[in-house]
């Protein structure tokens, strides 16, 4: 029994242990240098990642409040990988920062919240995990305390996340009022599609849409991405969004299965809006972080298409796309983080002639942009392909046509940046960027992931076999 407890909750306990190790170092008397703290934290996060692959078991605990299975283990491992890469990339920025340990403490508590949220099988557990995942993120967004933009970003994040959790909670309370239960196992049988339940569901849906920045609720995204420090931005855009997508897909497929007709139409409308508006706004951005923010909004639209397929392929393609997205987006943000940490330049025009001075980084960024655009040999193509295939199963070809047209629009702004990197001349290009072993390792992992997870079909097949649909 006790053994079960440790194995089932392994993913939550490990970050907790690392959290306390780092906390004791912080409050202890030992004066460790930044370099040794970063080395220790990275080693611990690597152990955390590797330990996730061994001794896993399906099961539930705490009176069905907490459950885990093979797909959830895979999802948590993807998030572990994401946080490990983020931590490697953060080294260039943290090296000279005063509060290194606090960064890791906030990062780990947010990760723990995401794990509890993914494993939660009760609306109470889910809500607690969600708040534990988002509140530390607001503090992280403000991590460059003296920067004006950083505090503005944190203010926008905390206000919009408080508002969205207000909507979510009102939805949950009405759901409780109509069904009398909070458990995911009991809810589906009690959902009958009455008007009050649909209203409650719309509120819940809006709360989710805020977190994954789907269009009418996306207004915070670009500002927070621009203002927050780059490693925090990459964590927000990859790990945090990935976790919410996993939960969103599984909640829609299991708990709200009786309302499938309702949410199919909502997903249809929101995915079209998200793709079109995300792409149109990305076209006019001058700041590279804002451009990547709007491009990530547009990518969310594609994920919604996959989820709307409501089949086994729907779950599988969403999870697969998040895996690909971890590698792709972290590669792009990794390069942006290095440039920003060493020169402070974040505008697209600053990247003109980047290839002349930094050929390696220029190629890494170019491959990542091709993968984001969905150009064939990279994993991004297969990710989008599976998402659209899953969506096409519903035979709603309007949706698929709009998605295909949007991919062409998105190609314009990605290629525009590639053109700036390789073709445009610049009198004062970004100087040669030096990067250490951590950044090199992160880049190698990202490039390998982008190429291999696309070419090796076992990855998708493995995810597909774990997924469920209806």
């Amino acid at each position, binding site marked *: 029994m006790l053994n079960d407890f440790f194995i089932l909750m392994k993913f939550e306990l490990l970050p907790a242990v690392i959290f306390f190790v780092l906390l004791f170092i912080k409050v202890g008397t030992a004066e460790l240098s930044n370099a040794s703290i970063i080395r220790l934290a990275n080693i611990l996060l690597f152990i955390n990642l590797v330990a996730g692959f061994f001794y896993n078991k399906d099961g539930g605990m705490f009176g069905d409040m907490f459950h885990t299975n093979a797909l959830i283990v895979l999802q948590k491992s993807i998030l572990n990988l994401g946080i490990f890469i983020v931590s490697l990339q953060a080294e260039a920025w943290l090296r000279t920062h005063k509060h290194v340990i606090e960064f890791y403490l906030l990062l780990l508590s947010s990760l723990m919240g995401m794990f509890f949220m993914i494993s939660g099988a009760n609306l109470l557990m889910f809500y607690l995990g969600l*708040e534990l995942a988002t509140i530390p993120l607001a503090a992280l967004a403000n991590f460059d305390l*003296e920067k004006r933009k950083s*505090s503005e970003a*944190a203010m926008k994040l905390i206000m919009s996340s408080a508002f969205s959790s*207000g909507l979510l909670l009102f939805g949950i309370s009405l759901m409780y009022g109509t069904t009398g239960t909070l458990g995911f196992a009991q809810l589906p049988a009690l959902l009958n599609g009455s008007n009050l339940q649909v209203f409650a569901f719309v509120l819940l849906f809006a709360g989710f849409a805020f977190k994954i920045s789907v269009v009418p609720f996306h207004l915070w995204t670009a500002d927070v991405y621009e203002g927050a420090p780059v490693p925090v931005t990459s964590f927000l855009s990859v790990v945090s969004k990935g976790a919410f997508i996993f939960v969103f897909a599984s909640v829609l497929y299991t708990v709200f299965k009786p309302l499938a007709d309702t949410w199919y139409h909502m997903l249809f409308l929101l995915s079209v809006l998200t793709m079109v508006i995300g792409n149109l706004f990305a076209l006019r951005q001058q700041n590279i972080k804002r451009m990547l923010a709007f491009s990530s909004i547009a990518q969310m639209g594609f994920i919604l298409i996959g989820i709307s397929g409501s089949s086994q392929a729907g779950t599988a393609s969403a999870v697969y796309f998040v895996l690909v997205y971890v590698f792709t987006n972290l590669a792009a943000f990794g390069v942006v983080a290095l440039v920003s940490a060493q020169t402070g330049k974040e505008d697209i025009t600053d990247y003109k002639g980047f290839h002349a001075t930094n050929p390696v980084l220029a190629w890494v960024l170019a491959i990542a942009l091709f993968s984001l655009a969905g150009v064939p040999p990279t994993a991004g193509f297969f990710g989008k392909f599976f998402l659209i295939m899953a969506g096409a199963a519903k035979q709603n070809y309007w949706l698929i046509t709009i998605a295909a047209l949007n991919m062409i629009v998105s190609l314009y702004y990605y290629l525009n940046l590639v053109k700036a990197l390789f073709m445009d001349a610049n009198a004062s290009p970004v100087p040669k960027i030096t990067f250490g072993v951590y950044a090199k390792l992160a880049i190698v992992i990202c490039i390998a992931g982008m190429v291999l997870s696309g070419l090796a079909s076992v990855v998708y097949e493995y995810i597909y076999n774990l997924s469920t649909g209806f």
Partner: protein
Amino acid sequence: MSEIPLTHILFVSTALFFIGMYGLFTRRNMITMLMAVELMLNSVNINFVAFNKYLFPENLDGVFFTIFIITIAAAEAAVAIAIIINLYRSHHSIDVEDATEMKW
């Protein structure tokens, strides 16, 4: 004494929720916006307790949920106020109109 019907309580909580939402959208002082959000969360608390007492008195799911909401709302307010204080140091104002460097 006749019992107050559930609909009366739901009317109050829903009104409180939308008053909070209105306050959040119209107020320009960050502390007041935070208070408006708290109003929204408290309306949810009323909902939970009322549903629990009137419809499902056999177990206490709703009341427990309320306790967690109060706790988390406090944590959220603490972080939000810390952020607002830090923002005040750099902007010398807690008016949201002054914190609009990033747009579009």
